[in-house]
């Protein structure tokens, strides 16, 4: 139909005219670059790609990806993404969010996305702070974190995104770091390829309000080579240790997706052929 379909898939071809509003040095640049690389590697047609976001620094992501995008309200990435996917299961749907958008205001949706298992990818750019509103503590900020709303230090324990997603039953759970673009590209590629709800927690430092560029690299570790990604207990063990920030795939399983379930229901309901309105009327006389 058009030349777009035949265009060469290069990372450059997914860039839009919009220049990211992020601060120079923001981890999100690394995430975006890895995302471009993954999309190019997977040769995803922009026509069939929808990037959904909420509010926060991460929320601007759809504007920087040449595709369809939906920049929704704060915390509602997953319901909107589910709606897109249910309406058209052929689309590649990627949700982009931050630790505030995903774990605080939108935290109630993750459990249900995980157990429904729609075939979509959810990338969290976790900087452990509210960057857009100037650095208040977030659900992943450490105890003692000092900022505008915690002048005496944060008294709340941070949540553990990976353990949470394992508990909720997500079928692909991984962690990456914006400063390791090659590895991150690989994780994003695997998460998009995964059939089902794929969650990638990406440590993406905020250079302006919570600069962790020096403290994170020494703590990084890889998922051990012999880690069994089909075992939830092993994944828990890995997620619950707090000596390191572990990068890699924690858990992976192929379970029926939401869209497959919907297709089954429709097939069953139409066993005697699709219905017409007149037939439904007949039930009411």
């Amino acid at each position, binding site marked *: 139909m058009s030349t777009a379909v035949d265009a060469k898939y290069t990372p450059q071809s997914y860039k839009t005219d919009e220049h990211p509003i992020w601060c120079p040095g923001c981890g999100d640049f690394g995430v975006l670059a890895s995302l471009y690389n993954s999309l190019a590697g997977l040769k995803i047609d922009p026509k069939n790609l929808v990037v959904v976001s909420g509010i926060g620094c991460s929320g601007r992501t759809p*504007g920087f990806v040449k595709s*369809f995008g939906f920049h*929704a309200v704060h915390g509602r990435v997953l*319901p909107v993404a589910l709606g897109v996917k249910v309406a*058209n299961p052929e689309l590649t749907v990627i949700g982009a969010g931050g630790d505030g958008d995903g774990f605080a205001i939108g935290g109630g*949706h993750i459990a249900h996305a995980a157990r429904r298992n729609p075939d979509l990818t959810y990338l969290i750019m976790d900087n452990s702070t509210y960057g857009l509103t100037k650095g208040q503590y977030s659900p992943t900020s450490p105890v003692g974190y000092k900022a505008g709303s915690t002048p005496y230090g944060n008294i709340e324990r941070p949540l553990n995104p990976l353990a949470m997603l394992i508990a909720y039953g997500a079928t692909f759970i991984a962690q990456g770091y914006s400063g390791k673009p090659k590895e991150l590209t690989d994780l994003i590629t695997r998460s998009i390829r995964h059939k089902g709800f794929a969650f990638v927690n990406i440590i993406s430092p905020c250079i302006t309000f919570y600069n962790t560029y020096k403290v994170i690299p020494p703590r990084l570790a890889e998922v051990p080579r012999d880690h069994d990604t089909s075992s939830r207990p092993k994944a828990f063990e890995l997620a619950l240790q707090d000596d390191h920030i572990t990068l890699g795939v924690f858990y992976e399983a192929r379970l029926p997706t939401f869209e497959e379930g919907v297709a089954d229901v429709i097939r069953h309901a*139409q066993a005697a052929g*699709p219905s017409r309105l007149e037939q*439904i009327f007949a039930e009411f006389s």
Partner: protein
Amino acid sequence: MAKNSTSKHVDYVFRIGGEGGEGVISTGELLTLTLARAGYEIYTFRTYPAEIKGGHANYQVRASDRLLLSQGTNVDVLVAFNEEAYQKHVGDLRKGGVVIYDSDSFTAASHDSAILYSVPLASLATEKVGVKLTKNIVALGVVAHLFEIPLEAFADLLRDRFRHKGEMVVQKNLQALQVGADYIKQQTKRDAIRLGPGPRQTKELVLSGNESFALGAIAAGCRIYAGYPITPATDIMEFLAKELPKIGGYVVQTEDEIAAVGVVLGASYAGKKAMTATSGPGFSLMTEMIGLAVTAEIPAVIVDVQRVGPSTGMPTKTEQGDLYLACYGGHGNCPRIVLALSSVEDAFYSAIRAFNIAEQFQMPVIVLSDQYLGHRKATVPVPDPSKVPVINRRTPTPEELKQYKRYSFTSTHISPMAIPGVHEVGYVATGLEHDEIGYPAASNHLNHLAMTRKRYGKFHQVEAIANELTRQYGEEHPEIAIIGWGSTEGVIREAVQLALEAGYSVGALHPKIVYPQPLARLRAFLEGAKAVIIPEVNFTGQFATLLRKRFAVDFIQLNKCIGLPFTPQEIVDKIEEVARHVNSRRREVHAAKL
């Protein structure tokens, strides 16, 4: 109190009362379907307790050989399963009305203006049928014989209803029906109520307001429903959960109402027609996302089956209290369309219109129904979808895609909406203020004004449709004008008929679209009126308040705020009261004095 029936017409109100969970509702439904199949027009009304089991429940069935507009004012036949039902409802009985009561449960003292039939329903069910649960079917046997409704009509329905439970259950129910009929044969008939085999053979459906709307949604092309269970809207979801897969659609039960509207917007953005339905508490949660739909220009249909608020309120009772929220809920300058359902039949066609307006103008349409309308059943002619042709959203032409501007300024304020997977060029739908392309424009002050004008430009065009869809009853330019909205239409229309027959100069105007308001029609109607009554089932007069913004008229409010709908007589009483003032003063009536 007046009779519903006249010498020319059959028109009876049956009310069945008893303990919730004891078969009151199923008795009412069986009576409804039997009379509907016999060809009577039916108009039911239900009140039921908020508890799952226990508490008082009642089911009212009005049956007539002519079009019914309301649940009626007085009761002709009361079936009381217990003393509470008798005490609660005997006051609503017309003079000479009938009470059939379970004498195993209580003894009714003789009543000077009612005809009492005492029937040991429980012991007949236990001893003669052997199943205590069949006492409501015994009662139906009594009703059938006493009022000469053919027993076979009930028997046919019982066979249809219980066939899937096996022959044994069917036989027990048929036996119970006969036991009731045989018992009452031994008593002398002391009343004059007689229905006979029924007047009409044309095919009609028996639908609730909620069912009628859901059918209309299917006809409109809705294929995705997302919602969270809430009384009194849940049956829309349950109905569609069963029916949508048969036509390739699906119902997603979400984790909350915020997610519900999120799924709807996502699905609509991706090209499917989608809706949600809720009641006040859920609707309150949806307001932020409604603003998103307005600014991102996404078609969506959101139904609010209103119940008594605020907060949890009275979940199973009716009110028209969400109009302000529907019109103004949310922050910013946020135009949306509000459509109010007026009857069970209207619900079907209004559903198609709601989707049409949402699609044509790419904006959310709020549909206001209420418990009274959503849960009552009525006979309606088989709906004809071709009466309201389906409209779909405007999508970009290949030419427009070359330099695609999702939010381009056009003469109609409507811009082409590309669909992922269908069109070659994407865009970002966003709640952030944006330019014509869809790029963020959060600091472009004049662009914000232009975009706000674009969004209101669409809104104002709907006023012409609102004028078209406004209905009028009674005199075209009456002395006493009535303006109603939503589910009160039938009651007001019946009251107008009664008042006209009594010689008053009266007429009513009833818009279907309440935001924007049909100003031209309202202006013409109000001309020359000496007094204007606005009846609403709420405390403050929300529609009257909206109209005061537009018209310098001393509207007379008639507000009912007890969780129950108006009766026609209540409206007639107000007309009479206002008429006395109009006649004695020969000038405009001051609302404050009424």
